[in-house]
């Protein structure tokens, strides 16, 4: 049986194994070595939350600290990718996208198309997403819909350690630019993770719980809220099927549609802001492609259309709860 390790360690292991396998993999970001130029030992920090700890000791200069210049180093990662490297660049918090988005959405995402297929940019941008850290409005966003909207990008958001390792390995081996979203409140979450490297293909949703009454679609942390809701609803006699999307672009709509064909009911749970969200995207596609199967209105469970509040009292209300998912499920049943 595989060990149980945390999502943080699973990510570290994926980076380590891919760097070992492929010399063109380089890893860069602010403080991801930790302490470059400082009196204390480098590799001390291993990133602001320690995710890359220990890698510098093993891989040396292929791990690079950067100055606080996101456009420059993310753009350099994109440029290096176009020149044959496989850079993994850490944008500490996805909330910082506003200072470097051009290099991601106008450069990395568009090179292949603009250049008539004659370029590829196999770059991975790792970033922390999500609320619950009491980190307030500028360090708690999901922003997954923004990247999913952009043609040319792939967007990944694992819900557990096993998926994180397999999806990150796939992201690094993938030949397209990938935004790899790590929910900071899942770093400590443990699952069984095999020692050896393995890749989980994109666009393969994971049915984490089967059930015939209602389909609940979720990703990232929300998978756990959905599962909790499903478990509690089961005691009421309602059986929910929980679909973990795992990747948002490409998205496994086949799995969602198939589940809805079976249940006739859909609840989408999304930690991103509601407008133009993943929840809206999935709901709309179901309303277009599985309309006949639907027995009642689709339901979307998202935070309110507000920035993320700081106070724990408010933040806990902001993040969709299992209770809200349960209410939504009930709403699809009565309608």
């Amino acid at each position, binding site marked *: 049986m595989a060990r149980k390790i945390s999502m943080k360690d699973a990510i570290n292991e994926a980076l380590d194994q891919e760097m070992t396998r492929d010399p063109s993999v380089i890893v860069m970001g*602010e*403080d991801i070595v*930790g*302490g*470059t*130029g*400082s*009196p*204390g*030992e*480098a590799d*001390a*920090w291993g990133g*602001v939350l320690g995710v890359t700890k220990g890698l510098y000791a093993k891989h040396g200069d292929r791990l690079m*600290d950067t*100055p*606080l*210049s*996101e*456009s*420059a180093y993310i753009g350099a990662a994109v440029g290096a990718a176009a020149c044959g490297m496989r850079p993994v660049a850490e944008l500490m918090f996805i*909330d*910082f996208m*506003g*200072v470097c988005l051009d290099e991601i959405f106008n450069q990395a995402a568009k090179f292949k198309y603009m250049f008539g297929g004659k370029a590829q940019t196999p770059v991975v941008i790792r970033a922390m997403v999500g609320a619950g*850290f*009491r*980190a*307030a*409005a*500028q*360090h708690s966003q999901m922003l997954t819909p923004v990247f999913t909207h952009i043609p040319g990008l792939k967007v990944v958001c694992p819900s557990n350690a096993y998926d994180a390792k397999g999806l990150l390995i796939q992201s690094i081996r993938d030949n397209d630019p990938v935004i790899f979203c790590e929910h900071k409140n899942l770093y400590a979450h443990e699952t069984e993770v095999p020692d050896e490297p393995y890749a989980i293909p994109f666009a393969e949703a994971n049915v984490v719980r089967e059930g015939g009454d209602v389909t609940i679609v979720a990703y990232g942390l929300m998978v756990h809220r959905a599962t909790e809701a499903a478990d509690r609803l089961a005691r009421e006699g309602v059986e929910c099927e929980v679909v973990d999307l795992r990747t948002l672009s490409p998205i496994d709509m086949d799995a969602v549609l198939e589940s809805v064909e079976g249940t006739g009911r859909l609840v989408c749970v999304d930690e991103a802001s509601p407008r133009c969200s993943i929840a809206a995207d999935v709901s709309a596609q179901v309303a277009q492609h599985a309309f006949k199967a639907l027995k009642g209105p689709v339901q979307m469970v998202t935070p*309110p*259309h*507000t*920035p993320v*509040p*700081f*106070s*724990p*009292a*408010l933040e806990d*209300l*902001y993040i969709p709860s299992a209770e809200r998912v349960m209410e939504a499920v009930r709403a699809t049943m009565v309608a």
Partner: protein
Amino acid sequence: MAENPFPLGRDQLLAAYRTMRTIREFEERLHVDFSRGDIPGFVHLYAGEEASAAGIMMHLTDKDRIASTHRGHGHCIAKGVDVKAMMGEIYGKVTGSCRGKGGSMHIADLDKGMMGANGILGAGAPLACGAGLAAKFRGDGGVGVSFVGDGASNQGMFLESLNLAAVWNLPVVFVVENNGYAESTSVEWAVAVDSYVDRAAGFGLPGVTVDGTDFFAVHEAAGEIVARAREGGGPALLECKMCRFYGHFEGDAQTYRGAGEVEDLRANRDCIKIFAQRVTETGVIRPAELTAIDREVLDLIEQAVAEAKAAPLPTAADLLTDVYVSY
């Protein structure tokens, strides 16, 4: 009474001391309360850097606007933001400066000219240019002051702002608070120039470097720069070399630091100790006067914490307000 060799009167010296001491005790208390688990989220302490905030802000009034950083408590206090409201905010209470919605990284008080701590590094520089621009249009003589750390001085938003302020001849002062580190990364490594004076010159700006642990050096340099900006003489850059007594954020094990580094800084580069020694050894201020302030400050902080702890949390109704003026 001894003759006063300082460019400030006794009242001003005492006020400067009170500001610095308030910041220090505020931060020392947060350090303790955070480690007890009383305070949520990210907290970046300004302890050790007080002379910069105090020395610069003494030249500013409420109509002057500052754009601060993630390490903003010191700037807030020196700019006159209510200490109890700040504490309430950091505790996530509805009595906080931002009604609990912002927290440590977003304390603001526009009435006091405090445009907000900021979780995005470098983002304050354009905002300060905007403050300068507004002052210029209003003709009210106000200035905008942008604070950035050494790390943030490599951010494009900051660099662009140096050029914009120069081109538009804005009444803006850029303060680089150089504490030697950006998180764990050394300034020597990350900033590719030996002197910020040269970086400023690359944008046609006058630049000055001072010992940021010397209140009087900061105060003097800031005085000239602010006055020039106020009179239409344009922007400038001021680098304060300083030191951070705590980790990057609370919870930081600081393994990247040299052995004995912090102890040494506390012993030899404590801007408050240095200030106290100078004003007392000249006889201008009596030690007892400072001790009295120390006591008052401790009382204030104690009260602020007690009130913050007792204050109500925001409730569900607060979640949805303040997003728009109207929607």
